[in-house]
């Protein structure tokens, strides 16, 4: 088994009602539990707040960010285990982010 990171990108801003948000959250919990039950979750990771800071370059300037377009904004991550990247990509297809118009970037963890 090899390790891969899912970067969840884009998706609608959460202007849903508290009840809808709870339903969306439940879909994520169910999906991650399903992957965990099949032994594919190494670290379920974390959802991220939308705001943040960017620290850049030799001058180490700090600015408000992130600056990625909303469609590419990273909204969270998960560390998974799969036999290869094709399986990792296949496993991501159950992710609730597709219902919100977002996408999943699947990246191999570099072996050190």
């Amino acid at each position, binding site marked *: 088994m090899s390790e891969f990171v899912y970067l969840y990108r884009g998706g609608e801003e959460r202007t849903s009602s508290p009840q809808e948000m709870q339903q969306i959250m439940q879909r994520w919990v169910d999906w991650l539990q399903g992957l965990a039950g099949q032994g594919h979750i190494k670290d379920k990771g974390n959802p991220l707040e939308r705001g943040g800071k960017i620290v850049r370059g030799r001058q180490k300037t700090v600015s408000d960010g992130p600056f990625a377009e909303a469609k590419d904004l990273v909204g969270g*991550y998960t560390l998974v285990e799969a036999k290869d990247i094709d399986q990792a990509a296949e496993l991501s*297809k159950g992710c609730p982010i597709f219902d919100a118009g977002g996408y999943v970037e699947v990246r191999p963890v570099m072996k050190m």
Partner: protein
Amino acid sequence: MNAFLFLYRPPEGPPLTPQQMAEVMPVWMAWMKSLDERGHLKHAGNPLARSGKIVRGKPQTVSDGPFAEAKDLINGYTLIQASDLAQAAELAKGCPMLDGGGSVEVRAIAPM
């Protein structure tokens, strides 16, 4: 203390050669150790390979990286503990990637 994620973005241009990688590795290790000793390292995270898959749409399609915007490429992450976003950004200033012209995106972990 609150949890924050560092997302590392390398400078634009070709990836590091194995020799350059070998040179910067000890600098990264020293920085991680210093964060850890000050009680700010929650999880060292992982470096990511410059390849991957993008899974998008419904029904989902899988395509290969590289990614449309090379400047948006994330090549690693670390989970940090800090009192607030400003302190987390201050801690990010020690990241060795900044000296090469890269950047660190600092994001708060969303409460569940």
